[in-house]
């Protein structure tokens, strides 16, 4: 009653005295409350029942309550109405509804079960998100005045974006393939085209949704990934990029011109790069995919050096600091569509490089009680010329995945070396050409529900090489003690490798089994001869210095890989079994040997994760191998001017085992990461290196049969912590290694012990968004002990600091300094870089001042079992360079 009166009064007041509005509102907004309990017809308290308070029996709700686990609900509401409508709603119970007067009250419900149908809906997504379609964007509609290359346009297309590194995302996920006219010339390196293809030559950009490039997998998997296809406006599009750099002193240049051509049936990208600034552009030719690296282990096609000049050990930092080069590189990538499933790709490159290496070394050899000191000054001139052609034919059909790569390599390399040893100069002329041919085939085929994989590898290579040393060395051996003009070593190696294998993978629950069987054949023919040159007369030194060796290896192998994986426990076991037959013969010395070996080298890996923070990893491996990779030569070969080597056909066997254990700790909550571990290796070889050092410092190496054991221990630990307030990461790493083995030094078995301890620290800081600082250091101690006396110790330390500053957009300033200290030598380097990107982002200017302190040479120490070697290497002088790059 009271409420109704108040309501009437309010009406009057509202019309007459707006001043009282506030007061009145307070009264009218007084809440009412309905509480109650909901039970089912059999007396159970019902939870999650919605109680809706509505104005009408249909239409919007004013307030609501949801029953708790005791079935109780509370609804607080405000309304000016006299009566209200209350309704229960739930999936499993019938609706109850009633009209109530508007007041505080208790309202209990007893509900009766009723199964209700839920109202289903399916709404089609908007067309742009629809799957299974090809969406075509017309470039003309999107391109603006400032858009020069296709990347600029792609960035504007709805759903597509280009990240700062050039990666293209569609709906936030990276695209899978970047096709130009449906062709995949560049594979992952689409940046090259994306940043250089002019927008005006592109007709449209197509997004292929649900695109599975390996057709074989198309029926098996469904994919959500999109690929991009660029449709060209004209039949031919030609474009490119160029970079020019100059510097001083001496006169420096750096050039890079990369023209491209795209056409509907074929594509071409060429590149010419040349510089004398110490950039080893030949590195760009290397591929580093995991698949390729795995293949290289078994099926190597790398160039082989049979002989050599006395090399300088190169410093362990960026080549641009020390490499004195003059390189020209021309590479061509060409793709041709043969038919729908078949593609041919040709990648070829021609390299011409001339390098000067200047430096020297001072070596101390400790031989029991004797010490021999050797000083050398080395000037080497390397000429590298090579042509590498790769032809890839790939078939990508519904029933097959096939890839065949044919590679033909030819090297015409030459090396000229000058060594001044205690003021007596020695000249070495090394001709080291190499030719190789290889074919690699990979074929995946489904058979029933399983996938079979067939791999085949065939390679043939030839290395007809020669080394001329002036004046003659090893006078005692070659010329009965008399000095002479020159000695010429000729060597030729021909090698044939065949490797075929077939594998099948089987999965049963948590077990995964890989069965593999294969056959390997290796055939090496090594010929060598030595000629003596004196007073312009060349004499063949005869059969005593001649090899004509035939090496045959036939291997049948099988491997069973077992994986057992649970959430906490991971077991990997490899059980490789092989049977090998060796047949070695030399026609000159009329020796032939045979050897059959049966090898079983099980390998076990076991990981256990205690919880989210601790993981324990263990490995164990049985070592049983035959050292068949060493060259065999019954007669002496002059490998370099101071190494005359004879190796008999002893296929040394190594037996032993290695094991390791590591405990990892990571706590992402406090950002602490750490690990510590220990590895141990013990091996027993039946061969020992017979190492004889002559009075003139030259060496005679022979392998002798003698059982010997070697041990190696390694303890390591690392910890890092990130401090979020400072945006800084601290990390510390240490390593201790102990090696023990025996060597044959000057006719006696000598125990040798090497110890190595190192400590690394690192701080990376990003306190400010415009500045970035990195500091690294390393301290290391090397100790070697020969025959329980004679300690050699070497201490090294290095400090590296990099500072990067971004004062404004498009500007970048970098400063990097390096301090290296070895026993008795100090090296300090400082470089400055300034980089400016022009507004249209098509061109960039860079100024680089390297080696500001004009450090002329770098030196380091090297300690091994029986010697200390101090090497020095001439560096590039302080230089300034200016680079300008642009697209055309």
């Amino acid at each position, binding site marked *: 009653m009271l409420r109704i009166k108040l309501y009437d009064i309010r009406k009057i007041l509202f019309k007459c005295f707006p001043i009282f509005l506030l007061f009145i509102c307070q009264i009218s907004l007084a809440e009412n409350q309905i509480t109650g309990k909901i039970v089912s017809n059999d007396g159970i308290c019902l939870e999650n029942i919605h109680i809706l308070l509505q104005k009408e029996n249909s239409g919007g709700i004013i307030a609501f309550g949801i029953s708790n686990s005791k079935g109780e609900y509370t609804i607080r509401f405000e309304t000016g109405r006299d009566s209200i409508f209350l309704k229960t709603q739930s999936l499993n119970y019938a609706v109850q509804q009633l009209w109530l007067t508007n007041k505080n009250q208790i309202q209990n419900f007893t509900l009766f079960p009723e199964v209700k149908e839920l109202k289903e809906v399916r*709404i089609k997504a908007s067309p742009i998100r629809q799957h299974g379609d090809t969406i075509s964007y017309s470039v003309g509609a999107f391109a603006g005045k400032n858009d020069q290359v296709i990347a600029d346009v792609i960035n504007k297309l709805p759903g597509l974006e280009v990240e700062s590194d050039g990666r293209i995302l569609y709906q936030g996920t990276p695209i899978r393939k970047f096709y130009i006219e449906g062709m995949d010339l560049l594979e992952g390196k689409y940046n090259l085209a994306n940043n250089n293809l002019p927008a005006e030559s592109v007709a449209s950009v197509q997004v292929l949704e649900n695109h599975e490039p390996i057709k074989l997998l198309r029926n098996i998997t469904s994919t959500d990934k999109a690929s991009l296809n660029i449709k060209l406006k004209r039949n031919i599009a030609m474009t490119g990029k160029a970079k020019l750099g100059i510097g001083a002193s001496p006169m420096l240049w750096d050039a890079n011109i990369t023209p491209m051509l795209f056409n509907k049936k074929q594509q071409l990208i060429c590149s010419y790069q040349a510089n004398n600034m110490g950039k080893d552009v030949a590195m760009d030719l290397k591929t580093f995919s995991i698949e390729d690296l795995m293949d290289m282990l078994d099926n190597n096609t790398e160039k082989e050096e049979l002989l050599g000049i006395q090399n300088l050990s190169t410093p362990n930092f960026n080549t641009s600091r020390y490499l004195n080069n003059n390189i020209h590189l021309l590479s061509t990538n060409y793709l041709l569509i043969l038919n729908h499933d078949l593609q041919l790709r040709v990648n070829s490159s021609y390299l011409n490089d001339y390098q000067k290496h200047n430096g020297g070394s001072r070596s101390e050899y400790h031989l029991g009680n004797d010490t021999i000191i050797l000083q050398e000054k080395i000037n080497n001139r390397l000429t590298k010329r090579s042509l590498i052609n790769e032809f890839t034919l790939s078939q990508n059909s519904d029933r097959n995945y096939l890839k065949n790569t044919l590679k033909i390599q030819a090297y015409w390399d030459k090396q000229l070396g000058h060594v001044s040893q205690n003021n007596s100069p020695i000249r070495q002329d090394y001709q080291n050409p190499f030719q190789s041919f290889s074919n690699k085939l990979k074929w995946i085929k489904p058979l029933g529900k399983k996938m079979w994989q067939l791999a085949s590898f065939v390679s043939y290579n030839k290395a007809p090489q020669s080394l001329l040393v002036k004046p003659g060395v090893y006078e005692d051996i070659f010329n009965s003690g008399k000095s002479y003009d020159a000695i010429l070593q000729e060597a030729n190696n021909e090698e044939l490798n065949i490797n075929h294998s077939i594998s099948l993978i089987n999965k049963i629950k948590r077990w995964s089994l890989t069965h593999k069987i294969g056959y390997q054949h290796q055939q090496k023919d090594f010929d060598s001869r030595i000629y003596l040159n004196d007073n312009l007369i060349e004499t063949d030194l005869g059969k005593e210095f001649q090899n004509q060796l035939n090496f045959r290896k036939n291997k049948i192998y099988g491997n069973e890989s077992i994986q057992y994986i649970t959430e906490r426990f991971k077991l990997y076991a490899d059980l490789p079994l092989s049977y090998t037959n060796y047949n070695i013969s030399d026609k000159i010395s009329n020796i032939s040997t045979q050897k059959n070996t049966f090898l079983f080298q099980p390998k076990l890996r076991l990981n256990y994760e205690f919880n989210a923070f601790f993981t324990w990893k263990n490995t164990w491996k049985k070592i049983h191998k035959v050292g068949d990779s060493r060259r065999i030569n019954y007669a002496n070969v002059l490998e370099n001017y101071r190494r005359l080597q004879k190796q008999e056909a002893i296929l040394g066997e190594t037996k032993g085992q290695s094991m390791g254990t590591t405990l990892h700790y990571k706590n992402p909550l406090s950002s602490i990461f750490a690990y510590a571990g220990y590895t141990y290796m013990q091996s027993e070889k039946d061969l020992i290196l017979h190492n004889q050092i002559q009075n003139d410092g030259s060496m005679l190496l022979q392998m002798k049969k003698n059982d010997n054991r070697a041990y190696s221990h390694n303890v390591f630990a690392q910890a890092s912590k990130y401090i979020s307030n400072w945006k800084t990461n601290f990390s510390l790493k240490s390593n201790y290694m102990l090696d023990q083995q025996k060597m044959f030094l000057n006719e006696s078995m000598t125990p040798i012990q090497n110890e190595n301890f190192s400590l690394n620290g690192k701080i990376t800081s990003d306190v400010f968004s415009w500045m970035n600082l990195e500091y690294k250091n390393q301290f290391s101690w090397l100790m070697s002990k020969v025959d329980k006396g004679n300690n050699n110790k070497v201490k090294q330390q290095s400090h590296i600091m990099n500072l990067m500053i971004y004062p404004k957009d498009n500007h970048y300033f970098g400063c990097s300094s390096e301090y290296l200290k070895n026993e008795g030598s100090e090296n300090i380097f400082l470089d400055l870089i300034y980089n400016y990107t022009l507004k249209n982002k098509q061109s960039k200017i860079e100024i680089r001042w390297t080696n500001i302190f004009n450090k002329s040479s770098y030196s380091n120490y090297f300690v091994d079992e029986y010697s200390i070697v101090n090497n020095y290497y001439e560096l590039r002088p302080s230089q300034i360079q200016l680079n300008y790059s642009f697209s055309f």
Partner: protein
Amino acid sequence: MKKLLTTLSILLTFSMAYCQSEVENHEAIDMAKLRCTYQFSYQMDSTNSKRLRHEKMVLLIGEKCSKYKSYNSIITDSLIRDFDKRGIPPQIVVSDMSIFPKTKFNHQIFKNDPKGSMSVFDRVFKDKFVYNEPLDLFKWEVSSDTAKISGYNCQKATTSYRGRNYEAWFTTEIPFSEGPYKFNGLPGLIVKIADTKKHYVFELISATKPPVGTLIYLPTYPKTICSSREGFRKAKNDAKQDVIRRLEDMGGHFENPEDRKRAKERAMAKARRTNNPIELM
């Protein structure tokens, strides 16, 4: 560098996906009654409204509780299981990881499990986290506005949560107090919800009954780190700032210091771009 990152992320995804395929590490907690799919659009960079991204999210509603997860991670799980069954060599799978759809959201939210709370499962790199929040996070204001959205009669309600104000449209025709992400507590399913700046938008695109017997699984990986919301946010933030070094921790290696520098710049630029999380505080 890119190769390294891709490879690492591939290996990671694979190992993670692999783990997820193991149903043994899941516990069935409820029977699903309704499967709702939301079209989810979000803006990672508050300064760039062009960088809108889309993903589909799935809400599986059961009798007692619900599960919310991204559609792409569900697909990845089923693909992995499919590969497993067919015995397709991992070399093939790994050589072409792009067949797995990627998701930006690895979180899974179980509402009303444990009772009265929600458990949020998420990841930082490989590490799995879980934290609980109370279920009654939202104070809803029901407004009188009604509309027909996605075929349902909806009514508007508003709330605010962690620095954003939301407008939700719910329907009493589906009598579940459910919604996408953490949202719940209305007397009916949320059909559409968006913050007032339209940076985060969820729209129901389908609600269907799953096949009879569809279970809702809760992950029970033993290596999950139990934490709080604050603990998880700190771990995630640390990892975001420290990404390059963590990749190196996991075995990544940069051949060239310049590459590392570039990778770091890129990671920092990316961190700057992703400045607009759904929970601002």
